[in-house]
């Protein structure tokens, strides 16, 4: 099989879903061919195939974009709405939280909202405080939404297909630094079920529970520590909410130690919820407190060295793992 980037993986998944189901369509700022197929080219080439009605370039109107996706979903279509950068969800939170997430429940199950909200973000590219945040915890705190993020091209293809298939809203987070990752193409029709984590690397001493770009950091740390005789297991959640509790707990029961890792700021992050849950349910086997590593509790800074200091780094992860194993 050919090697594909994450950008190509997402494009292929959307393309094949649109080819199979006329109810699937994309809308968002700059997504059509007239604007170059999306700022990160994920929708490149699709306007030529499916026309401007199904690749709708919108005004800069996040509330109208998500509202339109909600309405179209209620009418039985499967919109893929793009919010160009994740920080802009602040503009349309009402449509996501009060409407997309709740209409199934509030209607007694009559009006599900099958829609995907694609959004890009990531620290490390110098975009500063309003274009970089990982805000997954905001949505993980709301019942009625799936929150998904891939860490590699194959998962990107499979998770996107599964997200389009889902009969509920999905927040699909694409990390800007992962678009260029290359891996073997899993091929047409490939799906990764929502709510199913992957063991990205097996280990026996400690479980790192993470997702998205920081999976790469966790794998690099695992390589480094293997040389020191520490065996790290890496759990890639893939779906952040509702997450695969069974896989997480089984991993921790095996290793007896856990560390949660995310790019988002540490306080009140998803790591706090996961750590609390592990401590409630694995107390009998835990050899120490669950450790948490996350971004610094401030706005993402601009200057490159500040930004690098802000991001959770390998050194911090290694330090926490060693502290957990009394090997500092």
């Amino acid at each position, binding site marked *: 099989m050919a090697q594909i980037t994450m950008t190509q993986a997402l494009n292929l998944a959307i393309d094949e879903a649109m080819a199979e189901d006329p109810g699937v369509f994309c809308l968002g700022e700059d997504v059509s061919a007239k604007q170059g197929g999306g700022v990160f080219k994920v929708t490149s080439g699709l306007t030529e195939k499916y026309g401007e009605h199904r690749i709708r370039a919108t005004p800069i109107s996040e509330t109208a974009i998500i509202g*339109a996706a909600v309405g179209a979903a209620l009418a039985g279509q499967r919109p893929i709405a793009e919010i160009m950068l994740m920080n802009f969800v602040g503009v349309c939170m009402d449509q996501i939280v009060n409407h997309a997430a709740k209409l199934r429940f*509030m209607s007694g199950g009559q009006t599900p909202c099958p829609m995907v909200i694609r959004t890009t973000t990531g620290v490390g590219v110098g975009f500063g405080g309003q274009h970089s945040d990982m805000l997954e915890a905001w949505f993980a705190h709301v019942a009625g939404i799936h929150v998904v993020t891939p860490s590699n091209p194959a998962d990107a293809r499979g998770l996107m297909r599964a997200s389009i298939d889902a009969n509920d809203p999905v927040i699909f987070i694409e990390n800007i630094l992962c678009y260029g990752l290359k891996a073997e193409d899993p091929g047409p029709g490939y799906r990764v079920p929502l709510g199913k984590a992957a063991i990205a690397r097996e280990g026996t001493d400690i479980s790192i529970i993470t997702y998205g770009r920081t999976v790469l950091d966790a794998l690099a740390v695992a390589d480094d520590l293997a040389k020191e005789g520490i065996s790290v297991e890496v759990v890639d959640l893939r779906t952040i909410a509702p997450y695969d509790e069974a896989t997480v707990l089984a991993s921790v029961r095996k290793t007896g130690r856990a560390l949660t890792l995310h790019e988002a700021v540490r306080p009140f992050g998803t790591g706090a919820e996961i750590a609390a849950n592990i401590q409630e349910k694995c107390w009998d086997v835990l050899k120490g407190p669950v450790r948490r590593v996350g971004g610094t509790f401030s706005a993402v800074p601009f200057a490159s060295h500040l930004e690098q200091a802000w991001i959770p780094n390998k050194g911090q992860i290694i330090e926490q793992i060693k502290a957990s194993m009394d090997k500092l």
Partner: protein
Amino acid sequence: MSQIDRDKLLDIYTRTMKVNRTDEKFRELLMGGKVAVMYYCVRGQELVSAAAMAALEKEDYVVCTYRGQGEQTAKGIPMEKWWGECLGKATGTCKGKGGTMHITDPETGIMVTTGVVGSGLPIANGLAMASQNNGDGRVTLVSFGDGAANIGGFHEAMNMAQLYKLPVIFLCQNNRYGEHTAYADHTDSPNIASRAAGYGMKGVTVDGNDVHQIYPAVKEAVDRARRGEGPTLVEAMCYRMMGHFFGADFSYMPPEHIAEMKAEDPLPKLRKVMLEHQFTEEELDAIVADIDAQINAAVEHALAAPLPDTDEIYKDVLEETA
């Protein structure tokens, strides 16, 4: 004077009285302490809702607000289901999980009732976009108040609807109050419909208490939308003859405003039109009596209906738990 045929007039009258009698019954139940729920009275706005729903086809979509009783009952939600939902019963449209502010009944086209001012407009665009995409010929009508015209979603939705020529009708029921704030205290422009011009959209202001103005205005907007000519902003001037919600203080309404709204009450005006069209007092009274009987039966049914199972709090969250 517009030419509305007798059958359509009778249809509008029947729907109007259904809205009015439902409103009266609800207030009676609330005042008598028989039920204690949030209810947003529609007294004074019955005709606007009824005429607008009479201009739609059964398959058309409607998005309304917490003050949506008029659209909901006039569009035809079965009364037992409507009352069941308002009383939080398992027999309600939403199994008692939505309530008065979130009545949903896709079978009659009531797709969303939102409790958030102005949030319905962007969603209406999406329903209309689906119709434009799949060519099903439906139009979508979204009802909202003058207060909603000042939220950002209004602007975003109006621009997008006109840009794509979506088959949508924006029905602004200008009842002169946004929650407890008078129109002049929240908006300086003389009307809402003039904003349409800023989007390149057609906008009209009509007297919502005059059937010969409101029905033709909405009908024309519906026909334009169905012909693919795009959206219309219809502003229906009307009065909210009660407080923001049942039980709310509205002593802040100036006496001259109250005198004006009593003089403009749409119900006596509509009755007069009906008599002019050779309907008899007896015929009109019989229609109301029939509606009252239906409402009373529906209320009895709802009062006796079972409560939803407590397990319902875990259901319909995501598909897996449905």
